[in-house]
């Protein structure tokens, strides 16, 4: 046997054989693996309760195994209810608007802030605009209340001082799609801007030098250099957002609206509905809705990634 083949064989054996290091690394990964089993994989298994007449009390496993199968009954209830259409419309409708605005506005402002002459001012603006990202929806709900409260709110005081009538904001669904979209943009703008700006500032300045040599205007530089270079990040964040099209920010729709019943038609999304049913202990429909959310969410992220890979293999995630 040639020594090269021997060497190769030896290396192969080394790769296959289980080493002491492998045992140690497994030990090191064990706590996190247990965490994943308990908090991610057991719930995946628990998803079958959507097909069962699940009882709430008692041990989890005995309930899962002993509760009777009822097939698609829970799903029938869910989709036959009058609210199903409203809830699906809200979830997907808001998400489409959020995805579009969540790309267009941060990219626009990132490019604009990158063009400011003063780096220092740009840093200050960025820092200030990042603040909403760090505030919880509970705090934002409290701030919203300070503005929109009927008798004490800042907005109504302004309306009255200008001779108008105060508005009972939490009872008027007409305004809320606008408020919810505005708040969502407001909370995510600084965060999105920072991600795109990090990409812009990491671009090689020779591209711009060459463009200026050729007499390109600022607009042309943006259109033909900056935007194409941002494409990868935009596509990545787009896939991630589309994959979450059946999920909404529970805090935005539940906390900020103060769970007002008058706003049901414009503020109830799948997450809000699942939470409310869970709290009122009607598990059937909630588990069906959660199932639909998980399965469709998984399907959309895979499809979105597949489409991106067809168009531009380098931008795809998987």
């Amino acid at each position, binding site marked *: 046997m040639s020594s090269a083949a021997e060497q190769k064989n030896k290396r192969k054996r080394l790769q296959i054989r289980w080493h002491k290091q492998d045992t140690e690394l497994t030990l090191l990964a064990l706590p996190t693996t247990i965490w994943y089993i308990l908090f991610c994989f057991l719930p995946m298994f628990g998803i079958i309760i959507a097909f069962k007449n699940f009882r709430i009390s008692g041990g989890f496993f005995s309930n899962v195994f002993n509760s009777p199968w009822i097939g698609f009954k829970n799903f029938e209830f869910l989709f036959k209810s009058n609210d199903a259409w409203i809830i699906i419309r809200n979830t997907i409708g808001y998400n489409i608007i959020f995805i579009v605005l969540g790309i267009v506005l941060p990219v626009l402002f990132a490019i604009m802030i990158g063009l400011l002459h003063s780096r220092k001012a740009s840093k200050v603006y960025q820092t200030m605009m990042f603040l909403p990202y760090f505030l919880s929806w509970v705090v*934002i709900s409290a701030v919203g209340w300070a503005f929109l409260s009927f008798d004490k709110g800042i907005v109504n005081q302004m309306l009255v001082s200008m001779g108008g009538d105060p508005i009972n904001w939490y009872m008027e669904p007409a305004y809320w799609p606008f408020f919810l979209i505005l708040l969502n943009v407001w909370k995510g703008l600084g965060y999105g801007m920072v991600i795109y700006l990090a990409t812009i500032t990491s671009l090689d300045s020779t591209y711009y030098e060459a463009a200026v040599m050729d007499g390109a205007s600022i607009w042309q530089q943006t259109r033909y250099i900056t935007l194409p270079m941002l494409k990868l990040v935009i596509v990545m964040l787009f896939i991630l957002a589309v994959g979450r099209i059946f999920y909404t920010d529970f805090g935005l729709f539940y906390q900020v609206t103060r769970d007002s019943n008058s706003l049901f038609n414009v503020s109830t999304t799948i997450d809000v509905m699942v939470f409310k049913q869970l709290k009122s202990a009607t*598990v059937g429909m909630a588990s069906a809705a959660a199932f639909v959310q998980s399965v469709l969410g998984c399907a959309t992220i895979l499809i979105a990634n597949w489409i991106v890979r067809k168009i531009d293999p380098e931008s795809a995630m998987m």
Partner: protein
Amino acid sequence: MATQIEYTTGLDKFNRTSNVVNVFFHLIFILLALICIIPVIVVLSISFSSEASIRESGYHLIPVAWSGEAYAYIANQGSMILRALGVSVLVTAVGTVLGVLLTTSMGYVLSRPSYKLRGFLTWVVFIPMIFNGGLVSSYFINTNLLGLKDSVWALILPLAVSSFNVIICKTFFKSTIPDGLIESAEMDGASQLRIFFFIILPISLPVLATIGLFLCFAYWNDWFQSMLYIDNQNLYSLQALLNSLMSNVDALAKNAASMGVSYAVLVATMPKESARMAVAILIVLPVAFAYPFFQKYFISGLTIGAVKG
């Protein structure tokens, strides 16, 4: 002078807009920045308003009548608020340490190219990113199987690990730790646990800071876990307390009333509105002061995560 030079080099020299456009952009960003910090101003202002002025003329951007009574109340009678502050600090501290250990250990293991179970564990981390069991089954497993209802661990454990953070760690270890370093330690007979704790962690401060910050802010700002799992008011975090005060501002008096003062008297006299906003200040101020200093780590983590997803 240094900044002057900086402006005329590199990208800036070529990428200049006209002065008119520049001023116009500045105006837009000043407006946006103000809109973004308005919540802090409003909350501060209300917390420093006197209760009587709020009752008479409502909330204002600048207090009509200044008063520190809300903070005096918290210092003297706000045992409920201080307790919630304690819960928030405890959960944030324990959660961050635990989360950093769980996340970095997994990230390190996944970054070792010769590890036999690497492929398997990569799937363990990846699958939850695209599929999850949903709220209902998580809720039942956490309450019925793990017994987390009304336990402080319900606030800590479910948030400890995220696949996003694990992948940031893996990417960091892969790109910054030289293989030779680990190999030579292995030659010297060091175990992997020893290598991880005494060699890898001490030279990985940037990623520890990034993950630590993500976790720190996530724990401090969390209210959803409390809403799901905590009914016992003694385990309320600041967020949970503010949440309950938003629906019932008189709840503050209940606790104080048990200390001897009558409930009715307290409800009538205590600075409810401003105390509620003072709770919001206890939440917001640490964040508002901390994040500008740590923004750098945040951004580096976010961009690694966004690009390498």
